[in-house]
């Protein structure tokens, strides 16, 4: 979706405010809980990482821009868990007594399983999927697409020419996985020159590397 989350190249966002490295990991107790809930529900297999990203992107644009990042996560959690039938808007508003869930889920993460689960993480490589249309060294163009759903093709790369510099193999395709299908295909590192992306405002000799899937690209004939 062409949303405000797709920020690459936008103007007007102001200066970066660097933080001291001794700053705390979390800046409030509630941030810790949001972060931890988001991770703890992983093994329940209620939603995929791409569904959760897409849920965050659908926050109202004005709110997205005025929220801290963990507020965006909170909004995304409430949205995806309601959509998946885990909880209701009325329950979230404390207007209804919590009802037991009727869906079957994976098992709950126990406190002593935290490190095992998180040391393992997810796994996004697949054995089978679409054949690669491109190889290292090929010149490609980011497709000019504007899907209303999730996409990991940033708008600033669309219609722009780049070169495949690495093939990372068959990966779950985020754009599809956010909508329920893995559609594995090759993931590439694509190098775009700064001047191709930004014209005269770019810098000759500088490059931007973007990870893009096969379906994001078209051959340059």
């Amino acid at each position, binding site marked *: 979706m062409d949303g405000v989350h797709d920020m690459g190249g936008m103007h007007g966002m102001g200066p970066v405010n660097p*933080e001291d490295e001794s700053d705390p*990991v979390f800046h409030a107790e509630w941030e810790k809980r949001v972060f931890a*809930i988001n991770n703890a529900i992983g093994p329940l297999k209620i939603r995929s990482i791409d569904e959760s990203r897409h849920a965050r992107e659908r926050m109202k644009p004005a709110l997205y821009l005025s929220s801290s990042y963990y507020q965006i996560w909170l909004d995304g959690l409430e949205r995806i868990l309601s959509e998946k039938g*885990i909880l209701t808007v009325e329950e979230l508003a404390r207007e209804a007594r919590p009802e037991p*869930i009727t869906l079957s889920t994976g098992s709950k993460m126990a406190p002593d399983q935290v490190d095992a689960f998180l040391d393992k993480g*997810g796994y996004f490589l697949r054995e089978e999927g679409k054949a690669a249309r491109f190889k290292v060294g090929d010149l490609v163009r980011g497709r000019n697409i504007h899907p209303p759903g999730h996409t990991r093709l940033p708008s600033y790369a669309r219609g722009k020419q780049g070169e495949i510099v690495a093939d990372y193999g068959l990966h779950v395709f985020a754009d599809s996985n956010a909508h329920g299908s893995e559609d594995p295909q090759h993931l590439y590192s694509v190098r775009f020159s700064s001047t191709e992306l930004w014209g005269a405002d770019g*810098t000759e000799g500088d490059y931007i590397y973007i990870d893009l899937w096969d379906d994001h690209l078209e051959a340059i004939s």
Partner: protein
Amino acid sequence: MGHNHKHDEPPSDTVLRVKTLESLLVEKGLIDPKTLDAIVDRYENRVGPQNGKAVVAKAWSDPDYLSRLREDGTKAIAELGFSGAGGEEIVVVENTNKVHNVVVCTLCSCYPWPVLGLPPVWYKSAPYRSRVVREPRKVLEEFGTHIPKETEVRVWDSTAEMRYLVIPRRPEGTEGWSEEDLQKLVTRDSMIGVTEAKRPGEEEAA
């Protein structure tokens, strides 16, 4: 502006919503509050930039390790016990006299958790995400980092599940230093690529 908030008190509405969400999920039998405590403890105390510092210091000291890192970053980093969520596949990119690398996630907040822990606020903020792909040199200047004209800047936009760890240049005057001492020169920001490693004499007290 943007989501650059740091120390502001959150609206009590947010606090209330988080409490409601947690208690609903506990009541429905989906999460255990002690699990949440353990997750927070992991990222506050055990998984953070100290992991990446160990990787970089070893890469600076051990040419065989550096070649393994180049060949398969994920595997070489796992040798030191760092792996998993938020960094299932890690690629190292090396700064040299000719190339300076810097990492961003323009679409959200992707960051190599196993080696750097959780991202700082500025990394997830609208200013950094919007600007560093278009004017990286200017953004780096704001971090006090001047990149000479002849050095190529490479910006890595983490749009998939690949995560990037910058190996900063080894500072001059550190010949013969132990890995332990070298680690003190490596900073979180130098592994994101917005700064260089510290020079001898600039390291913080351990």
